[in-house]
């Protein structure tokens, strides 16, 4: 080791000592963070599975193998399979128009998209009751034509779409704004059709964020409780989604089954967070290679 590196090392250590805290302060802060997270994060997470497995593995599995539980799981999957593609389509379209064009009223549009996040879930359900309920705007007409929206699948789907509208689009807008318009403009000037530009330039650029947006939207769609609770009517085997089924089991003092179904939803949430962590690592790629030269290079490799 020569003298220069020793001095450089010392210099670095000195600089770092200036901008960090004493060992005691550091350890106390880490301990405080851990204590708080243990109380509010680790213990609840562990408790879901502990409560679910309290009656043994047979009782756990048995919680899913009955008519009502299976119906709830089927309904939840059905609702998500309608809601998620619609909100993904909306998310891509809205993010495209907001990130790639300048027009009057853009800020109002963004505020409008964010609105469902600000609204209480109970109110998200209430507004559909006011529209489609018997005393609502369309209620009498729907009753005359024997169309059921409230306390049936369409109502649950609508309330779930409302609650999850912002999730895909909010993941895409910042990314698409930071990527700029040059690549798409180049594709169009070189003669690509709109669809070619979208599938070969835009989609590859946004795929990771789109994936995370879709998975987050899915988790929220499957887990929505308040809004769905208002519009579903809680009809067993017919309009009970998984979260509503959890509520019913819990209120019947069937804690093991309630936590068993809850543990499925918890796994879904944990997987969602894992995907987020992976996507965040992947997403560093497009932002780092954002300079025009390396873009040309990656473009030619593709």
């Amino acid at each position, binding site marked *: 080791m020569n003298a220069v590196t020793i001095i450089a090392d010392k210099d670095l250590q000195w600089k770092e000592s200036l901008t960090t805290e004493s060992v005691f302060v550091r350890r106390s802060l880490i301990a405080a963070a851990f204590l708080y997270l243990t109380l509010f994060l680790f213990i609840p997470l562990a408790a*879901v599975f502990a409560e679910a497995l309290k009656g043994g593995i047979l009782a756990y599995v048995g919680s899913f193998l009955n008519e009502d539980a299976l119906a709830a799981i089927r309904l939840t999957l059905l609702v998500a399979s309608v809601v998620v593609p619609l909100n993904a389509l909306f998310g891509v379209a809205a993010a495209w128009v907001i990130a790639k064009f300048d027009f009057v009223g853009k800020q109002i549009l963004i505020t409008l998209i964010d609105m469902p996040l600000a609204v209480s879930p109970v109110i998200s359900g209430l507004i559909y009751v006011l529209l489609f309920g018997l005393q609502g705007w369309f209620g009498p007409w729907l009753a005359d034509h024997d169309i059921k929206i409230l306390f049936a699948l369409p109502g649950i789907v609508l309330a779930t779409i409302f609650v999850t509208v912002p999730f895909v689009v909010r993941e895409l807008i910042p990314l698409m704004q930071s990527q700029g318009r040059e690549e798409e403009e180049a594709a169009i000037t070189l003669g690509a059709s709109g669809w070619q530009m979208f599938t070969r330039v835009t989609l590859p650029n946004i795929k990771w964020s789109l994936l995370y947006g879709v998975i987050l939207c899915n988790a929220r769609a499957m887990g929505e409780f308040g809004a769905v609770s208002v519009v579903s009517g809680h009809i067993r085997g017919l309009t009970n989604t998984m979260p509503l089924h959890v509520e019913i089991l819990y209120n019947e003092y069937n804690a093991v089954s309630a936590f068993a179904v809850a543990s499925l939803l918890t796994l879904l949430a944990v997987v969602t*967070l894992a995907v987020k962590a992976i996507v965040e690592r992947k997403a560093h790629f497009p932002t780092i290679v954002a300079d025009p030269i390396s873009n040309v290079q990656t473009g030619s490799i593709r």
Partner: protein
Amino acid sequence: MSFILKQPSVLPGFALTLGFTLFYLGVIVLIPLSGLFVKTSTLPWEQFWGITTTPRAIASYQLTFGASFVGAIINGLFGSIIAWVLVRYQFPGRSAIDALVDLPFALPTAVSGITLAAIYSSNGWIGRFLEPLGIKVAFTPLGILVALTFIGLPFVVRTVQPVLQDLDKEVEEAAATLGANRWQTFRAVIVPELWPALLTGIAMAFARSVGEYGSVIFIAGNMPLKSEITPLLIMTKLEQYDYAGATALGVVMLVVSFVLALAINLLQWWSSTRHMNQ
């Protein structure tokens, strides 16, 4: 024409995507939300005032806003510590914890509700240690505070964290070389930088808590005048087919939510202009 509605662009799909976006938002968000206001406008003012100022309604506002506020402040303190620890220190499990912070946001509210109720009940993992001390959490207003603190956790961490990451260490070095001790540097250099983001995070946690329903009702006890939050009161009125009552209370909540959303937007704008001025 001096007034341009849209800047020219070679990119395709403007009319199609804007049209679809507006149609979708109109059907899903705008028409249903405006329905709430139209319905309220058919209520005579005296009736609206009467519904929204009953002792039961006022007790629910006090509880909802009070518990949300305290929860948001607790998260302001501990959220800042967590963000600081995650950005500045290395320790085992750091990236796993970083990912898990969003759990209250990703977990269905009914799941958080029954789990917190189980943990804090008198024979639960935490409740059994609090019971001998005379502290009852589950089925009391304290339980509501626990639930609202839980769901507000990610907001402060996620708003403060990026600002801390972008913070220029050279400014801290300069402060230190000019003779400031660590505490002085923290107070005079770091805190002013974090302040807008911290307030934004607290406001977001508060806004989320005010409307929260699922994670609260299982642990709250739901006694009118004592442990009944406003969203639950709306739910109760709906179940009794009292649509006028539910709508009136819904409008009060909605107006509060809009004011909070506006405040958060202003805070974010303040935060970003401060950032740009550097």
